[in-house]
């Protein structure tokens, strides 16, 4: 199958949805600019017209209200923010209004809109350009939240999100955008609310949120070297959460490690552990373990930022402890690329 980057996959999803449904519009700061939101919107204004694909004033809150208001007329807006952090200005509209739009009017209305939130990481982004507050949105009934970890899911979930009749928060990790992987052609959909077994295994369940799935897969490789069979579950959807998939996996493996792109405290990894404790009491042979970003803002300097993110090594270490491997981990060659970029082609500044 042909390979696309995450950004290309997203662009394709947008292009197909814009082509299919004239009600779909795409808006956000920089959408039609030469960089095209990390390449995800390139050429779309030219193809679908400036009425439907457009830039906007720097006014995240008001413009989110504009997007929601447009749904009253049957428009299905896709809004993008180049950093999740900027959308904190818009949570009033997203959480008070859009999330409740159907409920508070007794089901007569609906808010079919997608809010794409790009999560930054690396290259010294710093405290206000690297937050991943998906747990906030997942906390809120009325919203759906997805967080793809690979290009095919980015495409399939985005199409499903755009076609969905409820507001969907689409968590788009900056490092997922640069991953290259197989992506099917055409209007392919991935269901909202379903996790994906990214790798089957029997000894320990590694649950990945967003980009952390990539690290979980690397950790599974490390663990395999030691004969530990790790199952990697890519959550993909954070609300609704695929409880069945999580419970089935931990009932099989009896061990759980959850890796998140945000803080563990009151985060999605807490929810996963709580769910397992509540609904699969006794299934775990060892304590579950959570790995999130360090309990501090993400600092700019690579000397510290590199320490803030859980990496495959730590995930593997948690899994080793969980299965009772107590000896030292096998020594591995130091990583060849700097830790603050997803790969060597990434040279900043964003």
């Amino acid at each position, binding site marked *: 199958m042909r390979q696309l980057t995450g950004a290309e996959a997203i662009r394709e999803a947008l292009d197909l949805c814009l082509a299919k449904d004239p009600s779909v519009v795409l808006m956000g700061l920089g959408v039609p600019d030469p960089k095209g939101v990390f390449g995800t919107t390139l050429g779309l204004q030219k193809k679908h017209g400036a009425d439907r694909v457009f830039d906007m004033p720097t006014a995240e809150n008001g413009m989110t209200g*504009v997007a929601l208001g447009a749904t009253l007329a049957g428009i299905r807006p896709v809004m993008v923010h180049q950093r999740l952090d900027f959308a904190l200005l818009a949570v*009033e509209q997203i959480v008070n209004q859009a999330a409740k739009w159907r409920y*508070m009017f007794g089901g007569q209305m609906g808010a079919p809109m997608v809010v794409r939130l790009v999560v930054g990481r690396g290259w010294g982004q710093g405290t206000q350009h690297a937050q991943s507050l998906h747990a906030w949105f997942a906390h809120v009934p009325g919203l759906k939240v997805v967080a793809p970890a690979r290009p095919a899911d980015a495409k399939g979930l985005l199409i499903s999100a755009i076609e969905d009749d409820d507001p969907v928060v689409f968590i788009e990790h900056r490092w997922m955008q640069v991953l290259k992987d197989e992506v099917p052609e055409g209007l392919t959909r991935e269901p909202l609310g379903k996790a994906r077994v990214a790798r089957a295994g029997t000894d320990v369940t590694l649950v990945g949120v967003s980009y952390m799935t990539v690290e979980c897969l690397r950790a599974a490789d490390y663990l395999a070297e030691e004969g530990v069979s790790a199952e990697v579950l890519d959550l993909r959807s954070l609300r609704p959460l695929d409880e069945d998939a999580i419970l089935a996996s931990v009932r099989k493996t009896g061990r759980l490690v959850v890796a998140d792109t945000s803080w563990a405290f009151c985060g999605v990894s807490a929810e996963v552990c709580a769910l397992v404790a509540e609904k699969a009491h006794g299934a775990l042979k060892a304590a579950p373990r959570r790995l999130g970003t360090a309990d501090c803002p993400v600092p700019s300097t690579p000397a510290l930022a590199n320490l803030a993110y859980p990496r495959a090594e730590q995930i593997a270490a948690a899994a080793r402890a969980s299965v009772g491997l107590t000896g030292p981990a096998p020594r591995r060659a130091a990583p060849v690329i700097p830790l603050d970029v997803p790969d060597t082609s990434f040279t900043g500044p964003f």
Partner: protein
Amino acid sequence: MNARLGLYRSLLRARLVEERIAELYPAQEMRCPVHLSIGQEAAAVGVCAALRPGDWALSGHRSHGHYLAKGGDLKAMLAELYGKATGCCGGKGGSMHFIDRKAGFMGATPIVGSTIAMAVGAAFGSRLKGEKRVVVSFLGDAAVEEGVFHEAANFAVLKKLPVLFACENNLYSVYSPLSVRQPKGRSIAKQAASYGMPAWTGDGNDAEKTLALAKKAVAWARTRGPAFLELSTYRWREHCGPNYDNHIGYRTEAEFKAWKKRDPVASFKARLVKAKLLDEGRDAALRAELAAEIDAAVAFARESPYPEPKALLSDVYAGAA
């Protein structure tokens, strides 16, 4: 019915409905906050009278008058206040979340200023869909202080959208006078004009004058882009709830009385009587007719069933139970 009489009927109806609410509220059967627009009806009625059927309106916490003036269903309104399944939101909204899609009253929500942006978006979306529709955003004098007004107004002017911002300046936000919120002597309309749209000020206690202004503003909005109306008016009763509250100290009885003299209903009635379009007898008949309608709506609301428990978890998502 003569158009002027129609306007009067609309005014009087809003008044009588809300007076009934105020009367019934102490029974504690309407268990939700109520922000009455008594005293401000002319603004709502005058603006809505300038609209075409396909036009839309959105509002905020104080939306009773707007809902009624736009043609919202009275039974569904009262049932909503009583928390009933037959309410305009099935009981889920209460007083602060009115809607009547058929009437083009496209929603009210009580976060100050938030629906301003939605109104602008609704106008934007309507235009994209090829619909020639004006959308009215009803807002208060406090709402213009919110950043969302600034952002929405900028976009409306940028895109020349068919929106009318109808600002009822009643001098207060809850118990806070304008003086603690906006610089002395600065006109809301003038500041709105600085965004690049025409802005008019008018007497929001005079339905006919408001209608005349609104006609201009709506015509502008329909063809040229956003417009702004600042309508001065006054809330008679407490910010939220059925009582008078001039004794609690944030405003004077004298101020209230001065405004009460300019009662939008009584003064319009006097004008119609003078114009021989109305007399006491016809007025009494009209009141009786409206009272009967209200009686029926109250009875409907009280007799309607509460939503079933299963409704708690419905309407969270499309298609779900």
